[in-house]
């Protein structure tokens, strides 16, 4: 049966493990397109993951859990937004502070402890829902159809974000705010409002990305469950040259790097090789891909919004 071949399993897990990366990367992309760099993705994902899991344990509703995860992620982003947009703090340091505040040794762990979420089996989890005959179709079945609703929603999101940024008035304004806030301001665009809105939406998507782990992939709560996915998502945005369609490609590429260790270990492939070597694959490949992209990108400055990381102050040009 071809569906049991290791490559089909790896590709299926690429889509699975790529999905949280995709949500987080699309969120970060929106934030960065508006000129705000939020390095706190890892923290926002973890808080989204823990609160989403809490909501599903309390209410049993997966939809509500996703909403709670999004709100949790957005409220973490609000801290960053207030500090860097209103108080003009250094965006890099504020983002790092957010990871420490919310991350695996911070708020997410505190909440997980305080709400007694560790070692609980999930009451509900996302499962594949398409017709059984589709799911068992050869090759495409496990890869594309035996996936949860979160995967299909993420595809819709990629299309919507691409259309929003490139084909709508609002999207044009966002790009103006990210490229040249002075010009945008002169056009009558409210730079502060746009930056707040996109930072919050970015945080909401990061929260949903985190919830992908606790509501579908794992599905349970463990401290630091995202294991660096938030950082990989930030690298993905650079890899994708700030374009949402390329985020999809990159997310599945890194999804494959994260999925390979599990697939190979489960099947005893390459037994002599230490498991740590496989586990380090996503981290090492992030560095490799980033080097390739940045040395090519440095030549032509592809994509990075010109005002990324700088506060906008009207009276100081």
């Amino acid at each position, binding site marked *: 049966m071809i569906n049991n071949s290791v490559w089909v399993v790896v590709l299926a897990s690429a889509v699975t493990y790529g999905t949280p990366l995709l949500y987080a990367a699309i969120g970060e992309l929106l934030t960065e397109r508006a000129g705000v760099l939020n390095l706190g993705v890892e923290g926002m994902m973890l808080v989204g993951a823990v609160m989403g899991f809490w909501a599903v344990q309390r209410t049993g509703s997966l939809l509500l859990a996703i909403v709670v995860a999004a709100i949790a992620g957005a409220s973490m982003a609000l801290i960053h937004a207030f500090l860097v947009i209103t108080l003009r703090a250094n965006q890099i*340091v504020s983002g790092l502070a957010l990871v420490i*505040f919310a991350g695996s040794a911070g708020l997410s*762990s505190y909440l997980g402890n*305080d709400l007694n979420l560790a070692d609980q089996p999930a009451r509900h989890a996302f499962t594949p829902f398409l017709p059984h005959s589709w799911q068992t179709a050869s090759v495409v079945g496990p890869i594309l159809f035996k996936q949860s609703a979160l995967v299909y929603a993420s595809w819709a999101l990629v299309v919507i974000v691409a259309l929003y940024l490139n084909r709508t008035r609002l999207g044009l304004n966002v790009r103006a705010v990210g490229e040249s806030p002075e010009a945008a301001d002169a056009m009558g665009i409210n730079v502060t409002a746009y930056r707040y809105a996109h930072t919050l939406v970015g945080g909401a998507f990061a929260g949903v990305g985190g919830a992908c782990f606790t509501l579908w992939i794992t599905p349970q709560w463990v401290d630091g469950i995202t294991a660096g996915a938030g950082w990989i998502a930030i690298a993905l945005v650079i890899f994708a040259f700030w374009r949402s369609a390329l985020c999809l490609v990159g997310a599945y590429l890194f999804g494959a790097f994260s999925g390979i260790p599990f697939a190979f270990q489960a099947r005893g492939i390459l037994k002599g090789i230490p498991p740590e070597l496989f586990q380090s694959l996503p981290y090492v490949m992030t560095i490799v891909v980033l080097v390739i992209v*940045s040395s090519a990108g440095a030549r032509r400055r592809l994509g990075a919004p010109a005002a990324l990381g700088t506060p906008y102050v009207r009276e100081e040009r």
Partner: protein
Amino acid sequence: MIRIERRLTQPKWLLVAVPVGSIVVAFGLMTLVLLITNHPPLHTFGRLLSSGFGSTAALNDTLIATTPLLFTGLCAAVAFRMQLFNIGGEGQLYAGAVLGAAAGIALGNHSGWLSVPAMIAAGAIGGAALALIPAILRAFFSTNEIITSLMLNYVGALVINYLIFDSQSYWRDTSSPTAKVFPQGKPLPDAASWPTSHVGSLLVPFGLLLGLVIAALVWLLYTRTRFGFEVQVIGDSRRAASYAGMRTRRKILAVMALSGAIAGIGGASQDGDIRHTLDPRGLTAAGYGYAGIVIAALARYNPFAVCLVAFLLGGLQNAGYTLQGVDFPSGLVGVMQGLILFCALGGELLVRYRLRFTRGTHTAEAAA
């Protein structure tokens, strides 16, 4: 109406008032967090204070907790001062611990006092070597050093786990049957134990004194030498530095190597002062590297302030570790560190800008 204006001069008292104010506000916010989650705030703070600083035993433990934070704080401060965001202090500390332990084991008990300096040097080399990876990528391929140095933290953690749990490496104890079943690091020889000094009734780890000396040296380097001057210029304005003909690329390599070396010595101090073996679980669980970022930012990258802040956060971390349990959930220390840092970042606005309260008409005039 409130108008925000840039300050032309920064009054000295503000540089003290703002950090103190930040900590007060952070404790206020922390009270809120505790109240919302049904923990008695005053009781919690009281226990935090007494188990961090309340007795000789508590202070001794706090000094032990301060030692690695001093190194990782300096590691971050040295690099961040040049706007070089090395957040790989965590991994560089592991690398220093690995090479430091190797040096300690290799020299055994025969070479006497030589073990300690050899471990320090080996730790520095380990940390610097790991830090040079993001440095080279940044200098020659303009790759974002934040992400590359962070990714190496995860790789470093996997490597030390491999050395002890998944291989028969040089660092692993294979002497007894139990050690073969329950993997652990080889115990370091006695000569590799760093000396402890007594100050009054306190026990001061050698690493802590070493860290203080390094802090003083960093201060000298950054304020009294041409190298340090250029680093500060590059940090404040990369463009001005390149117009003045300063070599940014070399500085990136040198500063990252220095930053990594300091974290690496912190790793060697973990072997020599505290753990006396290569201990992957203990090293990876503590998050020294990330706390170092908080310390450097709170200290505004000033090496002497790093010493003070490291002591305060060391006390917090020690208290959190002692109290960990039902009514003191883990994660509280991280929340607190994050809150203090947020408040300090917000307070920065008050250092750089002045808030002016005006009536509506004045703003209209100013805008016109």
